[in-house]
């Protein structure tokens, strides 16, 4: 039995190494996945910002409109 001990030890080390590398790979995938979730949240988290941009655009548009209308009156 003792003759096979080094072989078992090697096998054990091989499985351990494989387990660690799989775990690292899964961790990396999990991080990638969470980043993607974050990306989605960020992608949809700009509704208020879009509203602000439209608000600024409206002010510029109204100024342009008023200038034309005032020009027409003169």
């Amino acid at each position: 039995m003792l003759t096979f001990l080094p072989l078992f030890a090697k096998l054990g080390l091989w499985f351990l190494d494989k387990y660690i590398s799989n775990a690292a790979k899964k961790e990396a995938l999990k991080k990638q996945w969470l980043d993607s979730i974050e990306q989605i949240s960020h992608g949809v988290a700009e509704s208020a910002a879009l509203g602000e941009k439209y608000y600024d655009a409206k002010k510029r548009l109204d100024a342009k409109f008023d200038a034309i209308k005032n020009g027409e009156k003169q």
Partner: protein
Amino acid sequence: MKIWILFSIFMTACGTAAPMFAENPTAFKNEATLQFSVDGVNFVGVAAIPRKKSQTLKINVGKSAERIVINTCAGNPTTISPANPFVFVYEPIHFIEDNSEKPCIMKIGVASTSSLALFGMIDFYGEEVSMPAWITCNRISLRAGGASICQVVTKATTRLVFDEPVLVEALDDCNKIDCKDAICTYEMGKKECGYLFRGLKSGNYHRHTVRGLAPLEN
């Protein structure tokens, strides 16, 4: 024999301690349009709909949906493991989500365990925008009310035809828009964008939002 037993215990322990995240998640390489209905009317990707006090959204999130994010100016509620279809009653919060000065465009994102992310966008518009237009978007022409949304691929040209000459203002970072009297055209850039029009005769407004269909950058 003892070694075999020890070895078996060792391997069992390894198996038990394996990470629980055993699915096969990948980053979102692509995005797709979301299918949904508002009060029973079906839409794909985007919609511009007159605002009501209460509207029922039925969102087709797919079988592998992990979470859904519905963003408005009032918040960013997220639901984990949503049912398919995901049913949501939208009641705009007064002064925040029905603000006539600052539009509140709803954005919907669905993350699934596949490599696909689904996006949708809805402009629930009110009386602040009332100038209609003919919109030619993705080679399809339709008559829009006070607001419109177009979802197109990068560099596609969109055309808007109004009933009267208009003035236009683009939001920051938007592609240039060319308007000649009542006809306006622009080429879609990579990003989300928007244009606000005002009729020179009526003084009424039209809000046009555009979202690109470019793949996500991963």
